[in-house]
């Protein structure tokens, strides 16, 4: 069963991302949006944890990155930027959505 995990809280304010990473199995996807996109930045205190999640594909919502001033060069390696249509596509492609609100 493939799962799309969504994270919308800053990794520094809530432990949503850490909890999500603890449960995201190989072959699953993690989409960061709203304040969750801060977890997609390179060089921060959670970047290593994100990089260590093997077999998990990471996505971030482009408009939320843009609003917060997170440009492409500030993103960690392996993060794919998607728009709202991409968000919907991920939700459809996976068997279920697990929202770590």
């Amino acid at each position, binding site marked *: 069963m493939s799962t799309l995990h969504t994270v*919308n*809280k*800053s990794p*520094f*304010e809530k432990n949503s991302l850490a909890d999500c990473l603890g449960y995201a199995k190989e072959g699953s996807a993690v989409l960061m949006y*709203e*304040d969750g996109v*801060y977890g997609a*930045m*390179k*060089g*921060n*205190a959670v*970047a290593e944890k994100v990089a260590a999640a093997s077999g998990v594909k990471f996505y971030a919502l*482009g*408009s*939320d990155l*843009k*609003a*917060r*001033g*997170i*440009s492409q060069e*500030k993103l960690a390696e392996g993060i794919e930027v998607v728009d709202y249509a991409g968000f919907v596509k991920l939700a459809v492609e996976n068997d279920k959505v697990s929202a770590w609100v």
Partner: protein
Amino acid sequence: MSEKIKKFMYLNRRAPYGTIYAWESLEVVLIGAAFDQDVSLAFIGDGVYQLLEGQDTSESDMKNFSTTYKALGDYDVTKLYVEKESLEERGLTLDDLMPLTWEDEDDDWAEKDSIRLVSRAELADVLDDQDVIYSF
């Protein structure tokens, strides 16, 4: 009638768009600036994200209030403390933040930096010296 000028500190601890705190803080700062008090702002934790350069909400249906920080100098709000440890934890440096300046009328309108990079220990001393602290 003149009263004692008090030191007001606005402590900003949250990221800019996920909640309304950052915007509300700015609103209160601008109102408070009209009362000729000694106003300072501090940015700690996710609050440092409020000052990130290049915010663009054109695709998000939200107001981009980050430009308002650039106007603070015109309201004599010239002390913006940014905590070093919070920047480092987030992989950021001063170069990632908006350049914020004010013009010193006592120094031939020289342009000066509003942002003061401080350590947690230094900021603790600054906070200790305040009369009033508002936390957002």
